[in-house]
């Protein structure tokens, strides 16, 4: 029932596989990798950047606005990292605050209103986790962005350019078609974060990168990505123009496919795509742990005493034990 077919891999990645995965992560983070604003002028004929969430401020880590693609209006939204220290500080290294996602939502609603397809470009290590972001509702901003995208009545094509980092990426990454550059990566948590939690050492990041199967090719195999876009030569950083040309070609083809669907069919297929993600096995209903009724209950039942339930209470079937011992196995 799933897109997530199990990968046929050895249980522990070989040293070569670990090194290969880590090389991809390095390429995805390459300082000269083309950013959203490097590609936009090469892909689109016109682009009008819009700023601000109309509530708090403009977040430079997300950029967006209407653009012309082969003469037709589309809405472009993307993460924006910097290319040097100054611009990276200005862009917060491409890690959005809640207002970034709220700006994205504003642009998506405008696209919905005007019937323009939405094209998003993912390149972030993740949503910013600092106190100010928490205070302004980082989780709510991501959640409502995701929800908005699941119901947008226009086609959405997502392209992962570099790092697809967790919720901060998914917040603008729900699409009808998801494309990824060859050296892009996509993961539920940064490899460093995963390593710190599961291996208790940030040095295990390459291991974590391999274990999470975060490369574009593996994401294609898992059904999370629909198409991988080849990069020129040694990588996208070597040739921005050629990369832009390949991305443009892939986006046009993807738009051609999804634009044929009526709105209802489009929404139904987007819903079905999301509903199908994951590996779930339907097995028999499990046997409940056998209950040994207390003497009080057995006598109570026998005599039909009030206050003695005829069936075990759920707290007897699933009681509580010591809590809080599993802090480190959890999620991101």
């Amino acid at each position, binding site marked *: 029932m799933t897109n*997530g*077919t*199990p990968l046929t*891999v050895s249980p522990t990645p070989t040293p070569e596989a670990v090194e290969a995965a880590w090389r991809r992560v390095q390429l995805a983070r390459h300082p000269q990798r083309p950013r959203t604003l490097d590609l936009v002028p090469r892909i689109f004929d016109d682009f009008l950047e819009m700023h601000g969430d109309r509530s708090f401020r403009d977040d430079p880590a997300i950029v967006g606005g209407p653009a012309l693609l082969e003469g037709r209006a589309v809405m472009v939204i993307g993460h924006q990292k910097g290319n040097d220290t100054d611009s990276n500080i200005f862009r917060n290294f491409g890690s959005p605050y809640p207002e970034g996602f709220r700006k994205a939502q504003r642009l998506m609603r405008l696209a919905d209103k005007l019937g323009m397809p939405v094209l998003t470009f993912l390149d972030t290590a*993740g949503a*910013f*986790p*600092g*106190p100010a*972001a*928490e205070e*302004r*509702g*980082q*989780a709510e901003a*991501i*959640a*409502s962005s*995701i*929800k908005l*995208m*699941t*119901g947008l009545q226009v086609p959405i094509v997502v392209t992962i350019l570099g790092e697809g980092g967790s*919720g901060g990426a*998914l917040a603008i990454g729900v699409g009808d078609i998801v494309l990824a550059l060859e050296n892009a990566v*996509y*993961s*539920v948590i940064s490899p*460093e974060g995963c390593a*710190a939690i*599961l291996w208790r050492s940030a040095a295990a990041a390459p291991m*974590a990168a391999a*274990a*999470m199967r*975060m490369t574009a090719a593996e994401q294609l195999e*898992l059904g999370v990505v629909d198409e991988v876009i080849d990069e020129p030569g040694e990588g996208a950083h070597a040739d921005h123009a050629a990369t832009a040309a390949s991305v443009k070609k892939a986006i046009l083809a993807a738009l051609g496919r999804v634009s044929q669907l009526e709105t209802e069919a489009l929404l139904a297929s987007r819903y079905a795509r*999301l*509903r199908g993600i*994951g*590996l*779930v*096995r*339907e*097995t028999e209903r*499990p046997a409940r742990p056998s209950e*040994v009724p207390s003497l009080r209950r057995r006598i109570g039942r026998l005599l039909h005493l009030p206050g003695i*339930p005829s069936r075990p*209470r*759920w*707290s*007897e079937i*699933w*009681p*509580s*034990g010591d809590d809080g011992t*599993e802090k480190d*196995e*959890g*999620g*991101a």
Partner: protein
Amino acid sequence: MPIKFPFSRRAAPTDAWTMCPSCESQIFNRQLERNLRVCPTCGHHFRMSIGERIDLLLDESSFVERDAGLESGDPLGFHDQKPYPERLEASRLKTGLRDAAVWGTGRIDGRTVAIGLFDFRFMGGSMGSVVGEKLARCFEAALAERIPAIVVSASGGARMQEGTLSLLQLAKTTAPLGRLDAAGVPFISILTDPTTGGVLASFASLGDLILAEPKALIGFAGARVASGTVGEELPEGFQSAESLLEHGFVDQVVPRSELRSVLSRSLRLLPVAPVDDGEGTNGDGRGWGPIGVLSGIAERLGGAVSETIGIEVEKVPERGGAEEPPA
């Protein structure tokens, strides 16, 4: 896994007492259970199992579990210090659950709801394919049966061991909420200690009504992620239920002893939208005309419902009396 014999002398003194992590007082376990796992001295809310939560919130014997057989696979062949299937098995033995969440239908003061619940002890309550699937089915059932949806969250976030498949459960569980909006079916999100990461960044933050338990840790990024990335420690109590209330992301912080009554009142105050039957009345045949209002009054005077929801019911005079000035 130690084998438990039904009559073994397991009740060693260490099992009988629990130390409150907040005020360090020793609490007799039976007393803790009777007090809904809330410290009698300082009011610290201990975490609850799914079973205890069901007994707390739902009418007795009304809960029917659905999709109990759903089970995780190991889609990535994930292996850190332990293989993922071994971690799953350990959690299963510890909790008696198949995965970190359970869903089913039940009644709250007679009103049927679809309810999903988390157990934090199962791999940190993390959301992988199975948890996402159960919640999506919970919301879809609420939609199909036009009953309110409730989720009681306690989760560290998305389950790393299923990689981006877990990440996309954020979208899988959120997509049905848009359909509930369109259909006029309410969703109530209850945040308990702890609710963080991907669960908070999806359905849990999107309740039409969001309730939280006192002092519950609720936040997007775990303290370790935040201090590791930002290099600054989060202020004490920053990611608490009370802080979220102050900043406008939670509707009410509700002590556990009142949770059931607040939930019951909420179901009455946020009813499923009437289906337009083309006769100008709403779903239960009551409009705002005289007959509809009267039947509403009759229901209130019925008392049975109002008693259990703890609202003061004032006597309403007979027909027409309401408009007349008091004698």
